[in-house]
């Protein structure tokens, strides 16, 4: 089985979010970048398939040279090879087009994406890849098993979960649950050393539209200070919730 894991390179979850250039660009100054957490669950699941079922795992990112450490990390975790498409990932559709092209050329059986990336939270790339290629698609996956050419998948739904089956090729949007957090891999020394010898191919992008454009960023307006209520005066809290906030 050939697996492609799509990796988004995102600010670490503790990052302070700031903008520059007249609030038109994300300020990367002092920001640590990581593998998008939703993708990390998918990557670990892919490595599991590699170890248990002999799958071949390629990781891919659409991004500039600055994203290579993130791909190297994925290689150190165990991916067999990496691809970087040398373009700025400014629009979900543009990114999906690039990825779909590689998938078509490489005939991947399983494409694992995160259900969304934690920077723009678009949640559009996995579905768009599937739509562009006519592949089966299952989103918000919390469990994935593959037997020959068919997959059994559990996805989260509002207030529960749903089990379904589909044949390969399949695209999934994954999240926590694909593996447990304690099973996430941290690159060890051996992994880091062998990652250096693994192939990281750089491809130039194909022509594709940007359908959307981030014009400007804003930060939420700072809110007024918290109103503290004494623990001995909870009637006041009830009254504030009723009369002032009007939520009860």
């Amino acid at each position: 089985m050939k697996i492609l894991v799509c990796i988004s390179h995102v600010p670490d979850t503790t990052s302070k979010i700031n903008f520059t250039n007249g609030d038109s660009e994300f300020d990367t100054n002092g920001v640590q970048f990581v593998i998008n957490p939703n993708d990390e669950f998918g990557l670990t699941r892919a490595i599991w398939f590699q170890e248990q079922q002999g799958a071949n795992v390629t990781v891919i990112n659409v991004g500039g040279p600055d994203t290579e450490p993130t791909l190297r990390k994925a290689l150190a975790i165990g991916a067999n090879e990496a691809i970087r498409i040398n373009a700025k990932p400014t629009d979900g559709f543009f990114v999906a087009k690039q990825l779909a092209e590689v998938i078509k050329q490489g005939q991947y059986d399983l494409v694992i994406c995160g259900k969304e990336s934690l920077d723009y939270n678009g949640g559009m790339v996995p579905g768009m890849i599937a739509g562009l290629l006519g592949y089966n698609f299952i989103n918000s996956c919390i469990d994935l098993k593959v037997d020959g050419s068919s997959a059994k998948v559990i996805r989260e739904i509002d207030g529960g979960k749903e089990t379904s089956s589909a044949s390969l090729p399949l695209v999934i949007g994954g999240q926590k649950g694909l593996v447990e957090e304690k099973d996430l891999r941290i690159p060890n020394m051996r992994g880091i050393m062998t990652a250096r010898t693994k192939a990281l191919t750089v491809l130039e992008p194909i022509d594709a539209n940007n359908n959307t454009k981030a014009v400007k960023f804003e930060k939420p307006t700072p809110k007024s200070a918290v109103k503290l209520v004494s623990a001995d005066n909870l009637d006041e809290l009830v009254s504030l919730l009723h009369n002032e906030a009007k939520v009860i």
Partner: protein
Amino acid sequence: MSLLIYAESAEGKFKKVAFELASYAKKVAESLGTTVTAVTVNASDVSELSKYGVDKVLKVTNDKLATFNAKAFADVIKQAAQKEGARVIVLSSTTDSIYLAPLVAVGLEAGYTSNVVGLPLSTSPFQVKRNAFSNKAFNITEISTDIKVLGLAKNSYGLVESTSTLSTEDFSPSLNDADFNVKVENVEKVTGKVTIADAEVVVSGGRGLKGPENWGLVEELATVLGAATACSKPVSDLGWRPHSEHVGQTGKPVATNLYIAIGISGAIQHIAGINSSKVKVVINSDPEAPFFKVADYGVVGDAFEIVPKLTQKLKEFKAQNS
């Protein structure tokens, strides 16, 4: 022209988000000088939509669509949009709608943006404000394609009534076998409990509650308020509560009217998931807990004393005000 919404229903009845979507769409349609068409799938009584400004319903009734299927539902919406010549399609942000939206966008060669939190800032060029960076910032996005798909963030617009005269038309989109390649085998739903997705109020507990045996406190408060229960990440990691209750950047987003956090420190990743809630109440023994910086109301003290008292007070309040 026209503007299309997909009015989601479950077991024949509209979800509340369908009405929020209609309210929002009505306003957008006005600014575009057009009307609102809703497509519905196996909804029994569509007349309710007229209260929120929908002008026309394309009513799909089909047993094959009895359970949700992203590809088939996307195909229905796409064909409805084509039939109506819709230039703007608005979807909600339920798990199902987020799932099908990119398929609709690709099918219509439309630009798509999710997490939209307000009316278009301008319709030419078409610009909307959306949440980004896990609710730590907003991003103004411009959609340049002829057809546009918007995903409206939950509770970001609210319900606005406006009467319209509704016309209804039966609609039978053509579905192909490939639409059903993903086969649903089993659905497990929690019944009889308010879920985070549907709740107006969420009561959430953190590691400060010390152990799963103390969750009765959280549940009793939630029951009085008709709220759903939730938790911080370590609580679900420790197995005190199910993963489905974990809220935050890597868990579920919560955009409720009222969010009550008990014994939760307010780490940046937790706050990212609850930022869009309107009113936040924090109960924490540590006056320096970061959660107090983002809260509207706070009580400093021991949750084990405060929560039972608050539950009692709210019970009395509800008894007097119901």
